[in-house]
């Protein structure tokens, strides 16, 4: 993929999707976010481009024109290729999801999805949180001690409930990265469904009130039509 290899700051994404219209939309959205994008329509083409290297994240449709997209994952994983893979699928049962992850997928998104949800997940995959054993997290003015379970913003100590602590930890491990509601539900609460009400927003609201006191600038910001972001200057 010479034409897409590291043009900008963002890593390249290979989208293996046989539905032209959807593939184009995905490409448009990812490119708008600054990702170089390559498209492949068939299993063979996808495998070839993926093997050539250059893509930092793969987006693979599970059903490719009667071909099994999961076999791409299996083939790549068998060859020891560790590129993070996001599986998109019309199959939505828990079983399907488990099969997709077992085949080597790192994340699973069910059609129809919001394009912002997809880009957020691609971003999460491309950043891959380094498995840090650090007991302290730092993001902008925020400082978190994982052993003492304490949080400070600058000099001010912030008192958090356990669930708020977990929520903030998730954001602090992903500074400046879009985090969607579905991601929070899956990763923070381990819930595999979307509540019909804005519960997550209420949790975020509570957390915000505690970390942004007085006239302090807002750290967790809303990202329109996508979710939230812990906005800090590096």
């Amino acid at each position: 993929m010479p034409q897409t290899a590291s043009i900008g700051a963002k890593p390249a994404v290979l989208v293996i999707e046989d539905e032209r219209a959807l593939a184009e939309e995905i490409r448009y959205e990812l490119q708008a976010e600054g990702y170089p994008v390559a498209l492949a329509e068939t299993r063979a083409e996808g495998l070839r481009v993926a093997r050539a290297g250059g893509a930092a994240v793969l987006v693979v449709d599970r059903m490719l024109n009667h071909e099994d997209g999961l076999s791409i994952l299996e083939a790549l994983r068998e060859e020891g290729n560790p590129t993070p893979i996001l599986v998109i699928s019309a199959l939505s049962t828990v079983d399907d999801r488990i099969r997709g992850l077992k085949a080597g997928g790192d994340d699973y998104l069910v059609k129809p999805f919001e394009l912002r949800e997809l880009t957020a997940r691609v971003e999460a995959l491309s950043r891959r949180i380094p498995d840090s054993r650090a007991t302290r997290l730092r993001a902008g003015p925020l400082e978190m001690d994982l052993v003492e379970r304490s949080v400070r913003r600058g000099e001010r100590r912030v008192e958090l409930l356990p669930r708020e602590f977990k929520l903030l930890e998730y954001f602090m491990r992903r500074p400046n990265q879009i985090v969607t509601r579905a991601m929070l539900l899956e990763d923070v609460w381990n819930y595999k469904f979307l509540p019909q009400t804005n519960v997550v927003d209420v949790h975020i609201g509570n957390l915000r009130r505690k970390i942004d006191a007085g006239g302090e600038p807002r750290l967790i910001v809303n990202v329109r039509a996508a979710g939230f972001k812990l906005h800090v200057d590096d």
Partner: protein
Amino acid sequence: MWTIDVLRSRAFRLALAFAAAIAAAATVVFTLIYLQFSSASEHMVGARLSDEATRALVESDDELRAQITQRLASDLLRLDYAGLFDANGVLLLGDPPSLPPIRPDGRPHLVDSVPTRGAGRPDQAIFVAVRRADGSILVLGRSLSEINDLRGTVARALALALAPTTILILVIGAFFARRAQRRLGSIHAAIAEIMNGDLKQRLPVKSEVDDLDRVARGVNLMLDEIWRLLDQLRHIGDDIAHDLRTPLAVARAKIERGLERGSTIEELRSAMAEALNHLDRSAATISAFLRVSAMESGRRERSFGPVDLSAVCAGLFEFYEPLAQSKGVAIALAAPRPALVRGDEDLLREAISNLVDNAIKFTPEGGRVLIAAAAADGRATVEVSDSGSGVPPQDREDIFRRFYRGARDGAAQGYGLGLSIVAAVAKLHGFCLTVEDNAPGARFVLRGDSMVFDSDEATRDIGAAAPKRLKTSA
């Protein structure tokens, strides 16, 4: 309606086979009788002749001649032979005209062709010959023509009896074949109509209980079930069509109006946003429908394991507490002890979450919501009650139907989708889901078999290990 079909029918073929069997059996019986009869008569005749010949050996010549003459004279049917031959085989007196080719050993012999007295075909007879002291040979015999005649009569009787029996059996067979065919014909007709799409048609059933009736009844029950399922499917299809088309139609209208009349970017934007909203609703409906279908197809997933409903409720309480607070609704949890069931934790959590979601949604500010979990007498129960507007009695069945939207629609969307998923989860687990009057408000109750503990001690241990689960907040 005696058609060729009757002859082809199973019943008639059975009759045919039956007739053949009867005929074969009768033939065997008659043959046995015939053989028995023939050999017995021949044996009797032979024995009598031997006896007489032996006795005649001691008679004087004159007396013997007189007896021969008398015997022949009294033989009106001309069945008996009695002859005296000299040592050279020349006839001295009586009948037959020449010495039969047998040894004079005093034992009965069958001679196939005896020169008869006068014209006529050679006779079959049994002869006994003895040599007298003077060298002459006495021959006594009896024709078998009488016996042969009897044999013929027996054979004819057999033939005469067999033919009408066979015909009778075939007639009866044809009669039953026709009857069976009439019933099969009506069944065929019914099946043809069913195949043409008239699923309300049923196979004819007679009052008598025979095997055909039993099959017909079975098929009818099967048709009832198919009809029920199809009806259900059609309803679901209608529901889906409605729930999908309505938001699609609205989305389409919004876009159309935006294109026609939207003159500013802002107007277009708002039209698009509204359209997107409705498209999302369609997507949510499809997802919910697929999930409910997958669950209703009834596979008990391998993911079933022990689930503590109290722990699930406690987690959800914590999850929803901020939302309730933000709405000014007091939410409370009463799950002091573990309530273990066998099930899929994720699905049960989603189901209870839907109930809590609804409860908070439908409870006005200042109201109360209670999440309770308990286990007693082998039953585990989860109750989610609110002080909202409640569910009118006439709607209490309907709200669990797929995608039902009660009068509460509009104010809060998604009510139907959520409850249909709760109902599907309950069904998958074999749990019972009901809604009761909470006076005021609604109380949703999910009840299932709890997992049995071996001892009270186990209960206490788990209870002690679990965090305190009796909380209230306002």
